[in-house]
C-alpha cells in the first residue's frame, strides 16, 4: 500500500489541500442557528386510535433547526432566502445535540398524551391520567451525581411542592432531588450554581394516560417537539367520530396542546407556513396572537394561497371544522 501511495505521491499532494478544505467546509461548525423549511407529516402515521377509522388525516409540520451549522450550511443559508439565520438562543448554547434530541422526544411523548386526553375530553369520554414533572434538558455545565433525562422528580429537599422548593433552594449549594426512574427511586444531589443561581436543568410538566376506554398506540419518530399537539388532538377527535372533519382538504397546522385543550404558541411559524404552502396545504391552524400575526405577515409578504385559522383552544378548531366554514 505504501508503494501505491509513493507512486501516486504527486497527485495525492495536489489533491490533499482542496480535499482538506472541502472536508473542513462540510464538518467545521460555526456559531449560528439555521431554520429551514421541513415537511408535513400525516398524524395517522404515528397515532393509531381503534375507533371509527375516518379517512381524512390531519398533518403536523416540522422545520429543521440546525444548531451550529457547518461552514457549507452557513454559506447556503446566506444565498437561500428560505433559510433563516439566527443567533443560537442563549438557552441552547450549553446543550449537546443528544440532549436536545432526547429533550424534544420527551416533549413529543407528552404532547401525544395531552392530545389524546384533550380529544377524549371534548367528546366527554373519561380518561384517567396523571401529571408530573420530569427532567427534559440537562445543560453541559450542570453539576449533579447521576441525574438522567426523563427522570421523574418526586421531591426537592423533601418538599413535594416543587415550585416552592426551587424558590427556597439557596444558590451556591447542593440540593437533594428525589427521582423515580424505571420503577426505582433515587436521591440525587444537584448544585444550584452561584453565578446565575441555575441548576442547569429544564424541567417539564408532562401528562401520562393511566387508563383510557379507547385503545390507542403512539409510534416513536425522529421528529420531536410539542408543536404538533393541536393537530394530534384533531386527528384523535376525527377518529372518534364518523364524520371526516377534513372534508377531503389537506389540513395542517402548528400549536401545542394541554390536557384541557388549550392551544399554546410555537416557534418558526414563517418556515412552517412556507413548508405547508410547498406541500399544497389548504387550511393552516395557528395559535392566536403573535403566531397568527407572524403567519399573516408571511402569507401577505410571499402571497401564499393558504387559509389561516387562528385558534386558542381545541374547541375553537373543532367549532370551525364542524360549523363555520367546515365540511
Amino acid at each position, binding site marked *: 500500500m505504501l508503494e501505491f501511495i509513493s507512486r501516486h505521491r504527486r497527485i495525492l499532494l495536489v489533491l490533499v489541500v482542496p480535499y482538506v478544505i472541502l472536508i473542513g467546509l462540510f464538518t467545521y461548525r460555526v456559531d449560528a442557528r439555521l431554520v429551514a423549511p421541513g415537511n408535513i407529516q400525516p398524524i395517522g402515521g404515528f397515532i393509531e386510535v381503534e375507533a371509527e377509522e375516518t379517512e381524512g388525516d390531519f398533518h403536523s409540520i416540522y422545520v429543521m433547526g440546525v444548531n451550529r451549522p*457547518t461552514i457549507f450550511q452557513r454559506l447556503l443559508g446566506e444565498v437561500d432566502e428560505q433559510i433563516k439565520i439566527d443567533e443560537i438562543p442563549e438557552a441552547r448554547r450549553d446543550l449537546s445535540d443528544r440532549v436536545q434530541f432526547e429533550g424534544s422526544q420527551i416533549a413529543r411523548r407528552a404532547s401525544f398524551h395531552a392530545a389524546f386526553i384533550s380529544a377524549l375530553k371534548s367528546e366527554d369520554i373519561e380518561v384517567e391520567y396523571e401529571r408530573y414533572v420530569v427532567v427534559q434538558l440537562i445543560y453541559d455545565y450542570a453539576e449533579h451525581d447521576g441525574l438522567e433525562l426523563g427522570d421523574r422528580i418526586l421531591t426537592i429537599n423533601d418538599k413535594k411542592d416543587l415550585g416552592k422548593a426551587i424558590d427556597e433552594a439557596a444558590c451556591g449549594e447542593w440540593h437533594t432531588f428525589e427521582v423515580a426512574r424505571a420503577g426505582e427511586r433515587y436521591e440525587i444531589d444537584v448544585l444550584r450554581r452561584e453565578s446565575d443561581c441555575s441548576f442547569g436543568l429544564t424541567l417539564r410538566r408532562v401528562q401520562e394516560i393511566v387508563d383510557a376506554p379507547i385503545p390507542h398506540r403512539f409510534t416513536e419518530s425522529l421528529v420531536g417537539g410539542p408543536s404538533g399537539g393541536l393537530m394530534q388532538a384533531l386527528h384523535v377527535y376525527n377518529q372518534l367520530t364518523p364524520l371526516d372533519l377534513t372534508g377531503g382538504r389537506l389540513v395542517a397546522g402548528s400549536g401545542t396542546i394541554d390536557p384541557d385543550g388549550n392551544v399554546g404558541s410555537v416557534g418558526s411559524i414563517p418556515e412552517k407556513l412556507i413548508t405547508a404552502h410547498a406541500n399544497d396545504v389548504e387550511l393552516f391552524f395557528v395559535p392566536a396572537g403573535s403566531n397568527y400575526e407572524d403567519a399573516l405577515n408571511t402569507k401577505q409578504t410571499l402571497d401564499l394561497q393558504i387559509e389561516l385559522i387562528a385558534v386558542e383552544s381545541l374547541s375553537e378548531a373543532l367549532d370551525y371544522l364542524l360549523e363555520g366554514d367546515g365540511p
Partner: protein
Amino acid sequence: MNWFKQNVKRMIEDFHASQLLRALLGGILFAALSTLPLFLLWVNLLFLYVHYLEWLAGAMVVTMGLFGALIASFAYRILRYYNPEARADLNGLMRLEAALLGAIFILIGVALALRHVPDYL
C-alpha cells in the same frame, strides 16, 4: 464458474494472505477517503432540504454503491503493485467484485433508507 474457480486458485497462489488483507484494508481506506466528501455533502444538504429527502437519500444510496465498487477497484490496483506478474485475471475479478460489493452496499443503503426516511415523511 470454471473461470472463477481458476482465478481464485491463482490469486491464492500469486499472493500471500497478508498481501490480500492489506489490499482489502487499503481499498476500504481509499474508497472511504474518495467518497467521504460526497457523503458529507448529502448529509449537509439533508438537514436543510428535507423537502428533497427522497432524492438525497437516493444520492446517499448511490454513493454507498460507489463506495463498495471503489473498494474493489483500489484493492486490485494495490494487488497489482504487489505482484505485477500475477497470472490471475485481476481486471476480470475486479469488475466482478466491484459489481458485487456495489450491489451489496446499495442493498444496505436501501435498507437503511427504508428504516429512517419514513420518519421524516
